[in-house]
């Protein structure tokens, strides 16, 4: 395969949702790259208008199944601010536990089942199971563990109603909590073994270019998945409330997802961004993992997002243990009550694939304005830029045999969540 003018990868496989990549080439030069989001618009921000906060909370997880709890969490954080609900510390710990569950579930799904087959040359993880059965079986167990936490804390595997304003419907009993701790301890070995497997893998460099990163800045000096500030790789820290100035959005015709840039240029979010911006805050085994894997190419190469996910798996397994220790013999708290029924609030969490922001205006108990900014929308520009770069270097070196796969691997490394991005809209109010 030498001269091809249009490279059309559709559907983009092993990602969540319906999308494709269109690359146009002229005279052996890349002319255009478009990540096409074909998933239809769902207009979620318009759907919640006039709804109560409780209804919002059951609707927003439906934006995306994989990170349904992150959506619920972001909304909870925004709504609890809007309604002035102060949650007790122990609820915060349970929320951490819940979020660790989602990270484990989502990262293990992406890393072992969606991305790893690329490194080993398979179509899917089940095909990979014949040769790498041990990894697949253990990976299934890890994913199952993440799901179990989501099921327990969320109320069911996907779209559970259990996390509510001010707390949870039901909290797990002592026995269940202990079992989570033991299982996390057991799986930690596998998560660390994964680090060693990755350390030996060769990562291609044809797409490497400088870019920018963004994530939530935790309110204390540890590593975490939320914050009321945004931190960027240029060293700036921005209040979360000003997210609209930080993340500039626009619509494009080739996708129902909106596009974002920071200071006029594409940027990346997700595990890679977090580890790059907050990695020096890691402790324990997660720090060992970081020390083993990190190198300075990470700043230029999105494939390392898979590696960053592997580090976060370790961090979250340790996080589960820590959370369980903190809540184990504590009494279940009362639901914290709203102190008002009108207000504005912005909630920021780190979904598995990156920064997720929910913003609400509530008037007399009903939603009058909502805005959701999802990670996939943020990094789409950067995916295009990396594919562009990759195309150029592959064409220049004549190394174009599996150029589609190379492009796909780049897109996949980001773990894009197309459902999330496609509902992402901006509502203009008069």
């Amino acid at each position, binding site marked *: 395969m030498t001269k091809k003018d249009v490279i059309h990868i559709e559907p983009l*496989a092993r990602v969540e949702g319906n999308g494709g990549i269109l690359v146009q080439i002229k005279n052996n030069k890349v002319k255009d790259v478009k990540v096409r989001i074909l998933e239809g618009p769902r207009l979620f921000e318009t759907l919640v208008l006039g709804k109560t906060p409780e209804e919002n909370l059951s609707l927003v997880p439906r934006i995306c199944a994989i990170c349904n709890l992150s959506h619920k969490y972001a909304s909870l954080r925004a709504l609890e601010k809007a309604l002035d609900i102060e949650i007790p510390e122990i609820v915060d710990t349970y929320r951490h536990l819940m979020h660790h569950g989602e990270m484990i579930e989502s990262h293990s799904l992406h890393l072992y089942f969606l991305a790893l087959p690329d490194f080993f040359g398979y179509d899917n993880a089940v095909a990979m199971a014949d040769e790498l059965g041990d990894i697949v079986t253990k990976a299934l167990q890890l994913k199952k563990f993440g799901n179990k936490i989501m099921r327990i804390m969320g109320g069911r595997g996907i779209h*559970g109603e259990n996390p509510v304003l001010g707390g949870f419907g039901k909290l797990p009993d002592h026995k269940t909590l202990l079992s989570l701790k033991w299982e996390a301890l057991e799986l930690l070995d596998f998560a660390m073994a994964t680090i060693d497997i990755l350390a030996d893998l060769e990562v291609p460099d044809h797409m490497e270019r400088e870019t920018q990163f963004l994530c939530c800045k935790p309110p204390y000096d540890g590593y975490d998945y939320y914050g009321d500030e945004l931190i960027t790789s240029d060293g700036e820290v921005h209040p979360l409330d000003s997210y609209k100035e930080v993340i500039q959005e626009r619509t494009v015709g080739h996708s129902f997802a909106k596009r974002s840039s920071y200071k006029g240029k594409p940027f990346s979010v997700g595990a890679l961004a977090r580890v790059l911006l907050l990695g020096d805050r890691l402790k324990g085994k997660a720090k060992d993992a970081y020390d083993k894997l990190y190198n300075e190419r990470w700043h230029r190469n999105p494939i390392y997002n898979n590696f960053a996910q592997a580090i976060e798996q370790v961090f979250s397994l340790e996080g589960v243990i820590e959370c369980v220790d903190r809540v184990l013999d504590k009494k279940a708290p009362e639901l914290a009550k709203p102190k008002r029924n009108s207000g504005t609030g912005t909630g920021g969490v780190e979904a598995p694939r990156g920064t997720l922001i929910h913003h609400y205006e509530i008037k007399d108990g009903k939603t009058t304005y909502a805005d959701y900014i999802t990670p996939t929308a943020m990094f789409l520009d950067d995916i295009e830029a990396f594919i562009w770069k990759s195309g150029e270097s592959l064409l220049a070196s004549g190394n174009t045999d599996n150029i589609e796969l190379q492009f796909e691997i780049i897109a996949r490394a980001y773990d894009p969540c197309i459902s999330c991005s496609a509902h992402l809209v901006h*509502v203009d109010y008069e």
Partner: protein
Amino acid sequence: MANEQQIIKPKIGIYGLTGCAGDQLVIIHTEDEILNLFNSVDIKSFVMASSNPEEGELDVAFVEGSVSTEEELHHLKDIRKRAKILVAMGNCALCGGPQAMYTGDGTFDTRVKQVYGDVDFLTKPLEGAPVDAYVEVDYYVPGCPVDAKQLFAAIARLIHGSSPEPYPHPVCHECKLNENKCLLLDKKFCLGPVTAGGCNSACPNHGLPCVGCWGPNPDGNFKEHFELLQSFGMTKEDIVRRIRNFGGHKILEYIKDL
């Protein structure tokens, strides 16, 4: 075992239109069954889990998500043409999903315009509609997302060339089997009696009211249930608005005369 090769595995396609991908994810997440599934059927297309789909004749196509663009409509029609049996799975495919909650209100075009301005899209956006608004559906597996046990029981029947079992009971059935005290007795807004069951009463199990995410229970006594909820101090509009959150196209027929 000797005649293992003779087993003709059904050719299966698993497709996602617009939705949250939760139903496909239920398949991927069912760690205990997924290997069995890959062993007992010939998966021709499951883009979310595997590369290199082969889009040919299928014995069974599972379709998740609502039809929300012209392109998806073409895709769906193509799937229908190729598939002997088409199974709609999940609320978006059955009712239209949350994105169909304003069906019939005529607000879609304005909402799209409000949102995207005058952008010319690759494909025309359509207001989310259930799969059976456009093509014939052979079986329905309800849920938001589907219940793994129910889905795999249905898949197993289809593997054996027969039909899945319907579950025509309200959420309350499993709610009682799970020994929950009825939330209606505490005057809580539970949609259990008018909602299709099969979710193992996930919400009432946590002391939380059913939000109706599996869509309408066709045998539901909507009139009396609405009156009961009104007697708890809820307005009619409030009830209708809430039940429409997940009722999509299908709820309209049950509440039109109320």
